[in-house]
């Protein structure tokens, strides 16, 4: 078993998330906050403003005229997109690194994160509560942050993990727990605590593979889980762990999601993949 303190100490090596991301997240979930409050926050961060305007003027949005200010951008593309772009901008530095141990190349964890978040956003629009859509998007984006740290330890123990998965039918996250003493969900939740994420966001990160039965009753966690398995099925930058996670059909039944719905979501996400590449490469 690995020294867990050694793993946890590595959290400090991640690029800290800019405070503005947490502030905007909080404002976006507050029904009393206004668009102008969010625009004011962004305006105070010149680098963020520049990136935001660049993305708004990219082919991703295909706007008919040039966007020149944050207020303009918010009016043209809407609050949902502004919040998502701020989150993408705040988190990309960590995720774009090459995570060792999971068999992923440089930027692949980020591509998986952005695609998961996009699919989660689609699911939240169809099956979620509108107040929680930013939470669901964010959780899908950051759920695998633990992999950035745990990867090094996975690479040391990969053979043992692989035997537990292939020969004993354990899921990859359970095998991580058994061999290393910690899995990427738990470690991700610790990162969330360190970065002062909300308790609900930390909960979703900790349970996004739904190993805990009570988490399967939670709608937001279920939607993030579903977005993740859809990305696995699509083969979006899946690495050494592949599709070695458990499927819970009762979760889909509870969401009233049929097999046809599942196929149509995969088709829609597949159709949007080129568009997502623009966000991945911003």
């Amino acid at each position: 078993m690995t020294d867990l303190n050694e793993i946890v100490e590595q959290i400090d090596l991640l690029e800290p998330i800019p405070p503005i991301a947490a502030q905007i997240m909080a404002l976006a979930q507050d029904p009393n906050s206004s668009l102008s409050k969010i625009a004011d926050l962004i305006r105070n961060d010149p680098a963020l403003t520049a990136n935001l305007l660049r993305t708004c003027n990219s082919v991703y949005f295909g706007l008919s005229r040039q966007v020149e200010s944050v207020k303009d951008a918010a009016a043209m593309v809407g609050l949902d997109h502004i919040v998502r772009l701020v989150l993408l901008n705040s988190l990309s530095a960590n995720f774009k690194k090459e995570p060792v141990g999971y068999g992923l190349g440089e930027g692949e964890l980020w591509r998986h994160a952005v695609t998961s978040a996009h699919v989660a956003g689609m699911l939240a629009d169809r099956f979620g509560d509108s107040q929680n859509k930013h939470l669901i998007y964010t959780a899908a984006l950051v759920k695998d942050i633990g992999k950035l740290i745990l990867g090094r330890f996975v690479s040391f123990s990969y053979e043992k993990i692989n035997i537990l998965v292939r020969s004993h039918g354990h899921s990859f996250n359970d095998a991580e727990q058994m061999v290393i003493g910690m899995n990427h969900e738990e470690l991700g939740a610790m990162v969330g605590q360190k970065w002062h994420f909300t308790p609900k966001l930390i909960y979703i990160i900790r349970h996004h593979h739904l190993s805990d039965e009570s988490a399967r009753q939670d709608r937001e966690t279920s939607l993030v889980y579903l977005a993740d398995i859809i990305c696995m099925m699509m083969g979006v930058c899946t690495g050494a762990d592949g599709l070695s996670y458990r499927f819970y059909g009762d979760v889909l039944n509870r969401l009233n999601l049929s097999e046809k719905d599942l196929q149509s979501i995969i088709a829609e996400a597949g159709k949007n993949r080129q568009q997502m590449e623009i966000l991945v490469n911003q």
Partner: protein
Amino acid sequence: MVPKQLNSKAISLMTAVNCSEMNISNNPVETLVAFSIGAGIGISVFDRVCGVGGILNFMLPDSTRANGVDPENVPLMFADTGVPVFMKAFFDQGVRPETMKVVIAGGAHVMDQTAAFNIGQKNFEALKICLAGYDLKTYREDIGGTSCRTLSLEIGSGRSCIKIFGHGEVKV
């Protein structure tokens, strides 16, 4: 309906065949690669007589079950619309079904995925029906399981390679 044939990114002489795309080549120094195939299926076809090979990388079995996505725009996303487009591209080059070497890989599933939601298995079943329509048999199948696969085809040798992380590769 215009199939996407040549829009993948060519890196050196390796050409990626992304999801819902296909590529056909007769360039003997080119290798076509479909990376990270999950529940979708990669199908490589090679004809030694004409020296033509190609890969189709489709994602879903049935174009009629994709609400909101017009298969006319993305025919290569589905087995039922993609395979005919793929086969026609070979037939247009004079390839005959009896000389085709067909290798398929993919159709993975999440652990314990129930049959109703097992898109990988449905992809496999849909592909088998499509291939039977051309009286085509597979030379090699690597289907199912919980791993993603990479399928490549060297046009020069006609050799396909199926790679699974942690399991090495099989050349056929």
